[in-house]
């Protein structure tokens, strides 16, 4: 008996998501604490002359933040989605292997040493990468006695807590009037200091990272089954895991070094995209990227527009995202 046929294409839904993202970017350009008339933003972008303050605001404040939010959201979601696949567990986030704790420590170190706005992300990035490299190497040592994935996760937990403690040490060493609040604010997440030059620097790693995962997205489906099944179907599981971990780590370290620690996005956005387009990574990865970018854009726009005081991103993501997520879960009877 024949039935079904090809699974229904989700491409249309995904296309809508990307279109919504672009529309949101255009709208976000018009929003901000400083009053800018409707025609100005797009006019300024596309070359019109306008007063220098507005020009400055559009190019040096809003545009970098918008692009930054898009890069951060898409990187974290792609990393989270791919980790959930290769670790065969929908409850993992991009910080599983310690990249966030490492970057957090690096940033705190940079703040204590007062290396300035260029040095801090650089040190954060290095330590983010370093933490994961350490996990990778250390896990190999204990992998003999247990399976590879378990050893990675375990080592990740240990190294993460090591760097978290070192971060606390930095807080203790730092000047309580200036360094401590600076570290605290950094850890809560903010795109307030982002410049166009930062965008240039991180867009490379993010695009390459997402590209690498995009190239192997189909194979990640197979990785969600047991190691043996995946290997028997022809997947070099170790190599694929390595590619995904490297791509995710580079992406995540880049964005975290600029925006601070932002949780929730990498964990929950992939769930939401699976709820909408299904678990096949050929659909859920693009959807995660689009939704993550869109979500982060909304969050950052709220953070910089709602009140005179700037709200921290890491707090908003959970506060705004969680009710929305619960609503989705209740509304659909779908599983993730």
């Amino acid at each position, binding site marked *: 008996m024949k039935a079904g046929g090809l699974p229904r294409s989700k491409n249309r839904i995904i296309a809508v998501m990307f279109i919504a993202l672009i529309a949101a970017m255009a709208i976000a350009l018009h929003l*901000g*604490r*400083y*009053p800018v008339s409707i025609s100005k933003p797009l006019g300024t972008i596309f070359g019109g002359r306008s007063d*220098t*303050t507005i020009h*400055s*605001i559009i190019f*040096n*404040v*809003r545009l970098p933040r918008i692009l930054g939010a898009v890069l951060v959201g898409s990187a974290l979601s792609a990393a989270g989605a791919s980790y959930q696949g290769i670790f065969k567990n929908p409850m993992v986030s991009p910080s599983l292997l310690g990249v966030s704790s490492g970057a957090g420590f690096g940033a705190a170190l940079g*703040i204590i040493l*007062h290396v*300035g*706005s260029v040095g801090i992300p650089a040190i954060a990035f290095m330590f983010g990468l370093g933490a994961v490299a350490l996990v990778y190497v250390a896990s190999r040592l204990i992998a003999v006695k247990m399976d590879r994935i378990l050893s990675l996760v375990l080592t990740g937990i240990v190294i993460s807590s090591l760097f978290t403690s070192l971060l606390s040490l930095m807080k*203790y060493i730092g*000047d*309580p*009037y*200036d*360094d401590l*609040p*600076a570290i605290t*604010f950094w850890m809560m997440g*903010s795109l*307030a*200091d982002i410049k166009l030059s930062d965008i240039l620097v991180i867009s490379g790693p993010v695009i390459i990272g997402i590209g690498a995962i995009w190239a192997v997205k189909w194979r990640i489906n197979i990785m969600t089954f047991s190691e043996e099944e995946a290997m028997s179907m022809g997947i070099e599981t170790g190599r694929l895991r390595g590619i995904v971990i490297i791509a995710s780590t580079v992406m995540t370290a880049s964005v975290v070094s600029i925006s601070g620690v932002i949780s929730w996005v990498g964990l929950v956005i992939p769930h939401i995209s699976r709820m909408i387009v299904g678990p096949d990574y050929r659909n859920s990865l693009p959807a995660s990227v689009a939704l993550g970018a869109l979500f982060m854009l909304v969050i950052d726009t709220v953070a*910089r527009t709602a*009140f*005179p*005081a*700037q709200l*921290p991103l890491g707090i908003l993501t959970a506060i705004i995202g969680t009710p929305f997520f619960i609503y989705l879960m209740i509304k659909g009877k779908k599983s993730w």
Partner: protein
Amino acid sequence: MNKKSMVIILIMVCFVFAFSACAQSTDDAPEESVSPSAATTPSTEDASPVTKVTEDMAGRPLDLPEPIDKVYGSNNNSTIMLYTLAPEKMLGWNLKFSDQAKKYLAEEYASLPVLGNMYGTGKKANTEEILKYEPDVVLLAHTKVTDKVKADADELQVKLGVPVVVIEANVDNYDKAYEFLGALLGREEKAKELAGYYSAVYAEVKEKSENIADEDKVRVYYARLDDGLTTEFLGSPNAELLDLVGAVNVAEGGGKETGGEVNIEQVLVWKPDAILVGNVGANASLAYQTITTDEVWSSLGAVQQGAVYEVPRFPFNWFDRPPSVNRIIGMKWLGYKLYPDVYDFGPEDVKSFFELFYGCALSDEQAAELAG
């Protein structure tokens, strides 16, 4: 297997003991003073410390030892006040000083140990370490004494087993605070001098600020941290000096009255007439550089006209953090910066303040440098 785990446990136990032994023997080596150009004339009075004080400024009954020779300031404000009044009774500081700050402190006191805070912002002190110095009393100065402050003081008193004396010391009552502390420590005369200086400055500032019409008030944005995008919102006690000198804190927080972050667009909307940069740490000038050179900041009139002022911070911050008696000179400085036609201020004021309060004789150049 059993033997192995026993060995491991033994090693761990040894580690724990080794660490605690090490910790006990580390001492704060006396820090060296950098430049002896500050002549040191600590004020001394032949002490006849018969204290007539029976309760503190929070109304808490006190049972004080006689004499009171060794005093520990539990927070930055109290220690600084103590230093200005009776430095010979100090046991130590709360925070470590930078080398530059030490230049303005008398050498013999600059090298006192850094004990940490038992209250307020700063690194937590080790109770046993404090008690080793056998303080007679512990001071706790707060800008506003509330029930919580009283409760904290009671708790601290129980913890240390030493009387804790609460002082209410704010920008509007330093005279009373000094009088009280003077009576407590048997330094009434010196206290009178300090209180007198303060009263004169305060009265002057109050009078002049009241005469500034609303439409003439200077609107100020207070910039903190390396990017200058952290501020104290309107209503925050940390920025009250602005109010005092007749300026307006532009940072309307929409209900928030403490410190917090803003984004640059918001600063542009506020259009401050002047920017006050107040950082304490080692690279405090990073914010000043950012504000005066960044493209977006340059759209501000305040930046274009050069109305960006770094708060002087030696030996302690003159504006805030900590909100100490240094604000006495701070309010004069601030008034002058914002309203040069209304307030008078010059190196002589700095010199007399430093002479009286810190026993530090400054040269003209040093005074000018400090006053920015």
